[in-house]
């Protein structure tokens, strides 16, 4: 092969420019994430001087209000929001790559609907009273069970069908089924119990306990690591299943693993915080645009950082805008996410 002299430098220059841009974006994301997480620790409906907060931070066992609020409320919530955002963003990214569809989010396959059904069973019927031993974690367990039951069904369907579109429709149908079941339960429920359920459906990182945060760290960490190991086949999937198969990707195994990882991440967040909208849909786009690439080896960590960052910011806004009144987190994320998705759709529409 002969290489003409003028074409040679293009590639190294492009590579160098790209590398420096990516490094810049990553540093910026990391710094911003730290800033927002610190802000989430710093700002709350009760304001404390910085020294007092720092003191509490370094003396977790102190028996005062500050230590209690910092260690039991602000810290778990800050971490939960960051982790939850990261998980949702990665979950959404996986499905967007798999379906090659930019408007797919982590809940498109009915994960949150599955959680909702189980939570509604616990909250809206007297079933929950039979398990009062699990009291503080009952909802979390129920939600987890629901999310993973739906995941199992989706994966079982994925084994049988070839086409992504069929799977997408199957997911939507799961959502409708679960929704129908939930609405029947709601119709039969006592007013008193609907209150808590409606709140749960709006999703929030409020009131998470350390145990739950540790579960998120442990399970989510393992899931994220597995996801990162999948970034090579994910990249091949950018060209579609046929090309990926021709390059040596085991499509069936890859698809199942991908669905499992995505659903597990989304299910984990839903279990802890209820359905949080739009993060999983919008953040992958933001990551792609800010880095200017679809290379998942870069996008996955970026989506993690950006998801954590955006969710931290949204949670801060939800907590502080009308403090101490809490606004629904999904409302804030939707305010941010919906215009972005709309913009992307319009932009794509104009191109084609």
């Amino acid at each position, binding site marked *: *092969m*002969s*290489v*003409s002299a*003028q*074409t*040679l430098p*293009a*590639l190294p*220059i*492009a*590579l160098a*420019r*790209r590398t420096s841009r990516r490094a810049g974006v990553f540093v910026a994301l990391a710094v911003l994430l730290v800033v927002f997480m610190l802000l989430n620790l710093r700002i709350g409906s009760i304001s404390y001087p910085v020294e007092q907060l720092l003191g509490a931070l370094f003396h977790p066992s102190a028996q005062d209000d500050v230590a209690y609020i910092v260690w039991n409320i602000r810290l778990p919530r800050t971490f939960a929001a960051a982790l939850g955002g990261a998980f949702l963003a990665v979950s959404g990214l996986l499905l967007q790559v798999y379906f*090659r569809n*930019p408007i797919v989010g982590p809940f498109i396959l009915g994960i949150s609907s599955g959680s909702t059904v189980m939570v509604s069973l616990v909250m809206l019927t007297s079933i929950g009273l039979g398990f009062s031993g699990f009291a503080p974690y009952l909802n979390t367990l129920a939600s987890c069970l629901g999310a993973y039951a739906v995941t199992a069904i989706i994966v079982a369907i994925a084994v049988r069908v070839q086409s992504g579109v069929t799977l997408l429709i199957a997911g939507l149908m799961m959502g409708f089924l679960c929704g129908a079941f939930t609405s029947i339960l709601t119709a039969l429920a006592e007013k008193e119990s609907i209150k808590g359920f409606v709140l749960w459906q709006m999703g929030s990182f409020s009131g998470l306990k350390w145990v739950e945060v540790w579960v998120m760290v442990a399970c989510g960490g393992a899931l994220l690591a597995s996801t990162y*190991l999948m*970034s*090579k086949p994910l*990249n*091949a999937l*950018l*060209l*579609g299943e*046929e*090309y990926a*198969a*021709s*390059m*040596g*990707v*085991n499509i069936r195994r890859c698809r199942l693993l991908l669905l499992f990882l995505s659903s597990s991440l989304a299910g984990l967040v839903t279990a802890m915080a209820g359905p949080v909208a739009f993060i999983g849909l919008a953040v992958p786009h933001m990551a*792609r*645009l800010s880095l*200017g*690439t*679809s*290379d998942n*080896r870069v996008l996955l960590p970026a989506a993690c950082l950006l998801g954590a960052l955006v969710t931290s910011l949204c949670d801060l806004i939800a907590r502080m805008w009308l403090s101490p009144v809490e606004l629904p987190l999904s409302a804030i994320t939707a305010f941010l996410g919906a215009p972005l998705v709309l913009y992307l759709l319009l932009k794509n529409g104009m191109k084609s």
Partner: protein
Amino acid sequence: MSGEPILRTAGLTVGYRAPVLSGIDLDFGRGQFIALLGPNGAGKTTLLRTLSRHLQPLAGTIEVLGQDLNTLPAFDLARVVAVCLTDNARPPLLSVDEFVALGRYPHTGRMGRLSARDTEVVEQSLAAVSAGELAGRLVEQLSDGERQKVVLARALAQEPKLMLLDEPTAHLDLKHRIEVMSILRAQCRSQGLTVLAALHDIDLAAKISDRVLLVRDGGVSADGLPEAVLTGDKVAALYDLHTADFNRHLGSIEFRSDGRAGTVFVIAGRSYAAPLFRLLSKKGLAIATGVLDGSDLDACVGAAIGARVFLRPTAMAEVGPVLNAALAACTACDFIIDSGPVGIEADTLRAGAAASGRPLLRLTAAAIAPAGGAERCYATLAELSGAIDHLPFFQSQAAP
């Protein structure tokens, strides 16, 4: 072509549930450019998908480098066979070099990190399709032609021994069509790559491929050198052609005139008249022409277009009877065109035409009317075309 065949099939039946093609026995050697021809829906894509293991064969065996396709590990297969599909991947925000580097998939490690050699192959692949300058651009922003070259580069980066392509030149302009085909052929020659490409463009296939497979009616109907396989009859049968003919000498398709608009006699010879024939054919005129040498291009094109060609007899035979027949045809036509050949036969026909009183149009290099001639003279085909449109009989023909 030596050594083990790249790909061999025996008694292969392909299809989705129901067989589409059956009894396929193929044997591809190194460095061959094989064109897969056949009408839409004949099963070209099905065959390609089966050979690339996207589709399970319904019967028979496929061997790649002597190994059963079914038992070949995915990565090993990907290092031998690369594909270019019609579904043109257009991933958003992926640069050309990243796209091409995806072709290194079966060669890289767990995380797909590119080694120095991988980068080198990517560069070479881009250079091979002369798209080196596209490296930093985004795939979604390329033109169709540029993208197709990049798609080829990706397949090349896989360093395959066999490349399966499904209509690689669809939607491309002439320049890119030729470029893509040239790149493939160059790879066959220089790298020993075997190419199996489903093509629609029979002209191009005939001229570029080493071998053609004709696919029709549930099987491979012919397999061999294009020069041997692609006869006018075979091509007409392959595509069910009624209004056009493939001319193996010209290597192209010529449309036949239905002759409804009238008849014309062209005094032709010396290969001047080929474009004129096409012009007249498109006007729907039945053409007669003579008297021509069998080796004359005019005779070749005339025959392809369905004209009645009066050929000068070979060797010892007398020209007289042919000339008389031509003269009779000439004077019976609605009008006559003189494309300006020299020779006794041409002069005879001219004289006969002038005597017949039929309109005589003359195409000359310079529009100089010969003294005393009743004929009209035109310097270009365009002028001649206009003049034909104004002939009284032609107008009355065309009017209703």
